[in-house]
């Protein structure tokens, strides 16, 4: 049964890697993990840290769960997944606290909350728990990279418009009038909507070109 499924969705590792970056991008297409996306993308540094932490947790849990996929009983799989994810979240949380305490304070409750990020549980339930560790790892890398890219883009736009800086460095003229709204949650929605709009626009053009062939 499991092999039949594998057969049915025969996908190469490269395809899995690409899917997360564009066609099945976790933020732009699947709209997963919206809570941290909107909450901590107010500066580029926050967004990058959050993206890296989530991607690291995703990669670690995907590898472990994919390795143990034959051992985990079906009935208790969700509880087992969450246990593994929580382990990696705790490790990541402590690592960030040890390396960058200021960043740890800035991200606050959103680091422990990675455990509830539906992107991670979603990828594990949909893919990692059914495929080989190699495919699972490539999928996690692709999804993680897609997540990081989008978060970073949001963080950069919001920080630039909201403060005139990028990673804390003043880029715009001294007298730049900051758009306060971009630092507030509302600005997150604006930036995300603009990003999705741009993505759909590019994708729409690409589809037209493809159909014309």
């Amino acid at each position, binding site marked *: 049964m499991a092999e039949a499924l594998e057969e049915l969705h025969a996908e190469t590792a490269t395809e899995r890697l690409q899917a997360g970056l564009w066609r099945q991008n976790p933020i732009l297409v699947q709209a997963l993990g919206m809570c941290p996306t909107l909450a901590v993308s107010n500066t580029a540094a926050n967004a990058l840290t959050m993206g890296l932490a989530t991607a690291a947790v995703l990669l670690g849990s995907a590898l472990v769960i994919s390795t143990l996929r034959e051992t985990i009983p079906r009935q208790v799989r969700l509880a087992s997944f969450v246990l593994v994810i929580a382990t990696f979240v705790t490790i990541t949380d402590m690592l960030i606290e040890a390396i960058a305490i200021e960043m740890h304070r800035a991200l606050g409750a959103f680091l422990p909350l990675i455990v509830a990020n539906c992107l991670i549980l979603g990828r594990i339930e949909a893919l990692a728990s059914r495929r080989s560790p190699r495919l699972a790892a490539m999928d996690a890398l692709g999804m993680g990279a897609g997540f990081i890219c989008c978060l970073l883009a949001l963080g950069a736009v919001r920080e630039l418009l909201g403060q005139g800086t990028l990673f804390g460095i003043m880029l*715009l*003229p001294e*007298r*730049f*009038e900051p*758009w*306060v*709204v*971009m630092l*507030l949650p*509302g600005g997150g929605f604006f930036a995300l909507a603009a990003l999705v709009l741009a993505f759909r626009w590019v994708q729409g053009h690409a589809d037209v070109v493809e159909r014309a062939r």
Partner: protein
Amino acid sequence: MTGRAPIDIHPAPHVHGGDSVPRIMLHVVIALLPVCAFAIYLFGLAALATLTVATIACLLTERVFARDEHSTLGDGSALVTGLIYGLTLPPALPLWMVALGGVVGIGIGKVLFGGLGGNAFNPALVGRVFLQAAFPAAMTGYWLAPLGSDRFVSLPGTTTALPLLAPEGAAVDALTSATPLGDWKFAGAETPLLDLAFGMTAGSTGETSALLLMLGGLYMVAMRVADWRIPAALLGSVALASAALHGLDPERHPDVMFALCSGGLMLGAWFMATDPVASPLTPAGAWLYGLCIGLLVVLIRAFSGQPEGVMYAILLGNAIAPHIDRWLQPTPYGAGSGQS
């Protein structure tokens, strides 16, 4: 529209009533003209520049988004949005902010919702609320004193700030006068009622003259392009709620006439809450909608950190308008009688 007695619906053929979007918009523009003229008299070139840039920004955005056969530029709705939007802004606001808010108002508030008829919120207020959130200091501080001596000679330094840049500190310091509502809330000072009624006060470009706004509103009601129930319910509930609060604590809460004539209440009640797209369809719905907005206005003015709340109240009213329509759906003739 909703201003008429219950209509008997007959089978075709029908006679066209002559109502059209351009006709409605023309009447709104006529109603707005005295208000615009007074704003220019009161604040001079700054008001003229604000209104011009606001209108051009709205028209251009409409033009860019809705082109060719889909063009809705000719129906005048973007012109009305631009004028009303300009009237709600502080007169000394930098012109680049005026333009930005116009693009947001039409672009995000109207076109992305599907254009005229599809917008859930009043586009002029969407533009204004974006500016309020983005540039709170400018939106609550760039007021001009009425009848400034050089108002027809030069523009305020803040108006001409370069795009995306803050104005010079000296230009901001040169601005004066808090609005009557700000004076009341933060300094406990009351503005004379005659100044409020005739509009000889600081405030948003077109919100100051309560009498001219009421005149324009009554004209729209007479021409049946605005539903009289909405301003009636809105102003009535503000009057009642203000009277109750003033009775309880005259030190903290202003009297009824002050509440009615100050801030953006008249502009909002007559010209924005009555937006036929974003307000309820049934007469009962119009009453309820006006009542909700009026109570929200008093609530925000009296108990929030902000002196004025008409903009938020109307946007919240827009948000509940579809629900009001659903709750108060009229029963078709003969339906429901067999159920009891």
